[in-house]
């Protein structure tokens, strides 16, 4: 019986820079149920990583959370006390980053990094013996399909290939992920055949452990076959929300439509058209819909009013005035 695990509501995040205030996140709302796999697609600079970092409270020093809430099992992550937050990070939520090379400390062996994490995980606060810590580390490496865990424990990150490093990162996240796993473009820096393996591994692990997942990507094909619900994000705003199949077969928002159309097809068909223009400056974003400067269907009101999410079908919503009036 799925219940809501995480709900982000109207999240606003700004960055303070020399030129002024970058109003990046523009009221982002999303939700994840238990055992649900959710994807966020968006291109670079759309704010998807910012949204995740805001939730995990690892934003840069010049970031300001200007509004909104992220409630995780009832508690607001954004306002949680440090102790509670640490507890959640150690026992419940975990994150895999885009570049496994940057996520691992190059001067420590994998074993040292992994045992550190294991030692500080755990709910009861009882300390584990060295034996137990090591055993758990090996066990978690095995579940990430890593051959010869003992050898890997004894290696430095540079001695492993990209795919193996990412698997180590997955293993590390498994130590503390009991409920939610956030994967930020896990396959982007890997070769396509390795990425394929990693995604299959991730899928298997997630199914086995009944985890909820938020998968972020800019490659649309990568999320298909993995997530059941998709959010399309553009310039800090969620533009469309739909079940995966529905989004691919029937994209509603003009941005989502053009994004899907811009992917070259394996079956041929020539070079698709891109989307002309560039993302609006976050310093002075459009008053209304942020896609208005590039939208072929832009109307009068799109410039001055921000479209709310309109219902299109069951579980399918789009933030576009084509589908409703405010």
């Amino acid at each position, binding site marked *: 019986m799925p219940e809501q695990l995480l709900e982000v509501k109207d999240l606003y995040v700004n960055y303070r820079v020399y030129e002024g205030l970058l109003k990046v996140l523009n009221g982002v709302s999303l939700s994840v149920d238990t055992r649900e796999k959710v994807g966020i697609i968006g291109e670079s600079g759309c704010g998807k990583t910012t949204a995740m970092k805001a939730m995990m409270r690892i934003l840069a020093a*010049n970031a300001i959370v200007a509004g909104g809430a992220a409630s995780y099992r009832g508690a607001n992550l954004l306002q949680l006390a440090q102790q509670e937050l640490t507890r959640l990070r150690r026992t419940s939520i975990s994150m895999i980053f885009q570049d496994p090379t940057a996520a691992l400390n190059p001067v420590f062996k994998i074993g040292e990094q992994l045992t550190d994490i294991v030692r500080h995980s755990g709910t009861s606060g009882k300390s584990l013996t060295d034996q137990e810590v090591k055993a758990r580390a090996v066990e978690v490496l095995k579940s990430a399909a890593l051959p010869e865990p003992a050898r890997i424990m004894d290696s430095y990150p540079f001695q492993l290939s990209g795919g193996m490093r990412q698997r180590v990162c997955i293993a590390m996240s498994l130590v503390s992920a009991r409920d939610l796993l956030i994967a930020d473009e896990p396959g982007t820096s890997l070769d396509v055949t390795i990425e394929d393996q990693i995604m299959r591994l991730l899928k298997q692990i997630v199914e086995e452990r009944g985890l909820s997942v938020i998968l972020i990507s800019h490659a649309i094909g990568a999320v298909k076959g993995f997530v059941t619900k998709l959010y399309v994000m553009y310039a800090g705003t969620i533009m469309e929300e739909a079940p995966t199949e529905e989004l691919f077969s029937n994209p509603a928002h003009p941005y989502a439509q053009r994004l899907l159309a811009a992917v070259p097809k394996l079956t041929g068909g020539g070079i698709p058209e891109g989307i002309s223009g560039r993302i609006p400056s976050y310093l002075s974003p459009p008053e209304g819909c942020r896609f208005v400067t590039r939208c072929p269907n832009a109307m009068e009101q799109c410039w001055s009013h921000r479209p709310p999410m309109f219902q299109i079908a069951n579980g399918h919503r789009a933030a576009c005035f084509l589908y409703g009036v405010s």
Partner: protein
Amino acid sequence: MKTVASRPFLDYKKKWYKFSRNYLSVAGLVVVGVVAFLAIFAFYVAPYPEHVEFYVNYSDALLSPSWVHILGTDQFGRDVLSRVFFGFRYSLMMAVVVLSLVVPPGVILGLVAGYYRGGRVDSVIMRTADIFLAVPPLVLALSICSVLTPSVFNAMMAVSLMWWPWYTRLVYSISSSLRNEAFVQAAEIAGASPFHIAFREILPNCLGPILTKMTLDAGWVILIGASLSFVGLGAQPPTPDLGTMVSDGAKLLPDQWWVSMFPAMTIVLIILGFNLLGDGIRDMFAAESV
């Protein structure tokens, strides 16, 4: 076809913003600014400029700090405050002269060694630099100075001789890592000459670290210069050098502490100022991230 106004490389307003975010850097700038001002206008600002050279007035000797002599007088009756101001002159002059002598050749050698990385040129330059770096700086300076006649000039030469390799190393590390970057390869493929690549492609990328190091080095050079004077190998009395003042006044500790302590404190202050300023300069050139 409109002509576009040129944006200078040093976008002053933005650089100032980055610099001024840290109030300590601004404090460093103020300290260095005040010291420089006092040094340049010492003649006009010092209450007793005539005390700087030969002056003896035993009736005023060793007066403790008062409104007449703010930092007191030394054993010859000379006003400590005025001498300190003139001492700043020698210190700053040392920094300016040494860095002017050291930075251009050091940077050029580093660029050349980095450009021809892996070859004979690289080895020759860097091993020579290594030899100079292997000797402890103060020891090298001391040995040079003790062979030559002690003077401010010779002290500056000695310090310069051991300082250049640091710049070579710094620029070498940046230059050799940028050597294989795509934009350098693109310039090579376009047919640019090695001179162009070294000076117009690579050098601009080194400016930040070079300027930061120069600022921090100013403090170090001043300290080394003062150390040389302290042991008698730099400026000679009656030249009001901060180091000589400290050593002269050392015999009078702890009773007439002001003769030695005030010059010593100003040395600390100057170095601190340059360090804080250097931090700020580093921030100015730091890459931004959002």
